[in-house]
């Protein structure tokens, strides 16, 4: 969830120089805990003028929480320097976003602040109720269902029989990636998937499918990021110090990415074939 950082009025934010010698920091964290999701943060504000607005209750420290899938969207506010929020887990599913802000609680006319950049000079500044005065950090977390194994690739890929297709196909618009095989191929897959050639069979089906998936992700990530398979793949890549967004760049081609995820599938297949040949000799 992206918020605008360009405003027609001064906002304290590390990426601009609207204020001098000032700072606003927060340390948001999101953690699931026995049926609730706890979101907490400290607020550190270093700017006397803005601090006075908080003390006079014209502004408040806030945390904005949004979970698009369950249509959950709430702003929590305090004038203290610490805020802890508990949300029942059953209200959240998929991705949740938390942002910390300092926000105007009431309209503020003729705003003055000694630490404003000289650029603002004698400009008359006013804020509406809801205007952002300072921007803190933001965090994102994914609430997966309990039965979803976070790092388990087979849990997010399903191989199915297609009764009318004559070639293999991949469907990505659901929480699980569905690979459809024509009837004969599927029956062979089902009969031999646990045989001595299981790695070779998996490589011939999963590897090209992942290449297609990773090629598609590059330009269409926005269409997929809500799905469980995308979120699981994201975690798999993060665990190996890559990011899913890098797939399709020079550093990480779709073919390389697919082989990394499957952990050198060609090697496993050839070792299997070599072993089988040795047994036949």
């Amino acid at each position, binding site marked *: 969830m992206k918020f605008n950082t360009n405003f027609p009025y001064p906002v304290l934010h590390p990426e601009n120089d609207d204020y001098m010698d000032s700072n606003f920091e927060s340390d948001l964290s999101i953690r699931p805990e026995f049926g609730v999701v706890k979101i907490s943060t400290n607020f550190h504000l270093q700017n006397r003028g803005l601090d006075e607005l908080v003390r006079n209750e014209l502004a408040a420290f806030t945390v904005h929480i949004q979970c*698009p899938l369950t249509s959950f969207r709430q702003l929590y506010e305090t004038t203290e320097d610490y805020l802890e929020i508990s949300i029942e887990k059953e209200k959240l599913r998929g991705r949740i976003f938390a942002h910390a802000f300092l926000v105007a609680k009431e309209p503020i006319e003729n705003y003055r602040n000694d630490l404003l950049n000289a650029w603002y000079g004698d400009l008359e500044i006013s804020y509406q109720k809801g205007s952002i005065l300072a921007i803190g950090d933001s965090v994102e977390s994914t609430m997966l269902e309990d039965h979803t194994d976070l790092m388990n690739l087979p849990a997010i890929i399903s191989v199915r029989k297609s009764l009318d297709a004559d070639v293999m196909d991949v469907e990505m618009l659901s929480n699980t990636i569905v690979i459809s095989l024509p009837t004969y191929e599927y029956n062979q897959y089902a009969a031999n998937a646990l045989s001595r050639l299981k790695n070779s069979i998996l490589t011939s089906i999963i590897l090209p499918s992942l290449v297609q998936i990773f090629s598609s992700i590059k330009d269409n990530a926005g269409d997929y990021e809500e799905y469980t398979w995308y979120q699981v793949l994201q975690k798999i890549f993060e665990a190996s110090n890559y990011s899913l967004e890098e797939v399709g760049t020079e550093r990480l081609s779709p073919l390389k990415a697919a082989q990394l995820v499957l952990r050198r599938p060609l090697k496993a297949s050839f070792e299997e074939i070599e072993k089988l040949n040795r047994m036949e000799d």
Partner: protein
Amino acid sequence: MKIKFLSEETLLDLRTNYSSYKTHYYRKDNNWFDEYFKGEGRVLESQIEFELPPFHFEENYSESDRKNVKQIYESLKHLTVTQATQERLWSGLAHLQMQDYVFYRLKKELINKNDKRINTAFFFLSGNKRSLFVHILARLWWVGYMTYDSKNASNPYWLTDFFTEKDFSARSVIFFSSNFTSNRNITIGILKALYKINHELDHIKRDHFVQATKYLNKVGGALILDMLTEEDVEKMIDKQLRKHFELPDRVGVL
């Protein structure tokens, strides 16, 4: 009775092989569906009790949609929102316990073999969030949930009645696809403003909904709209729509 839902395997099979099964849908072939769902592990029973809603089957969908939003929401108000985002639950109800309603509501699409709509009506094929307002059953529950005004004890469905009185399908998707309408104060505030203008103009059009959400998207870039009360949002939208559609200012208290 308890809600029945589809196993993941069954859901994937029906989705993947729709083109092979589609003639059974066109023919509303109950025998085939009964046989299919008898297969072991195809249907699972949840622990969620419910009463089958007394659906309305009028020829005029704008009449029945309005009533059925209330019927389904009353019957399944106890679902948690996470349960209500599950494809297996809605697809299960559409194929099993609420199939009669689905076949009634898809009468034209089944006759015309409109595979695209039949698919999006039974399954979540429009993205997880959007599907909630496109799926033939989920959209009834979600519009009920989003428009229910618990502060109005005598008629909590007054905004539901207004929202569903016309253009239900398009309104639901346009209005609830916006991120802002996830906030209850914002949703109720906009609907109250639209409701009042609707009374003045006799009937508002789709463009009034479009302009209201468009305006919020614009101001939402500079403001945290969630800081506003229901009344703040109502005033803001009222002012903007009057300006945009050149309507006279309202006299007196909102």
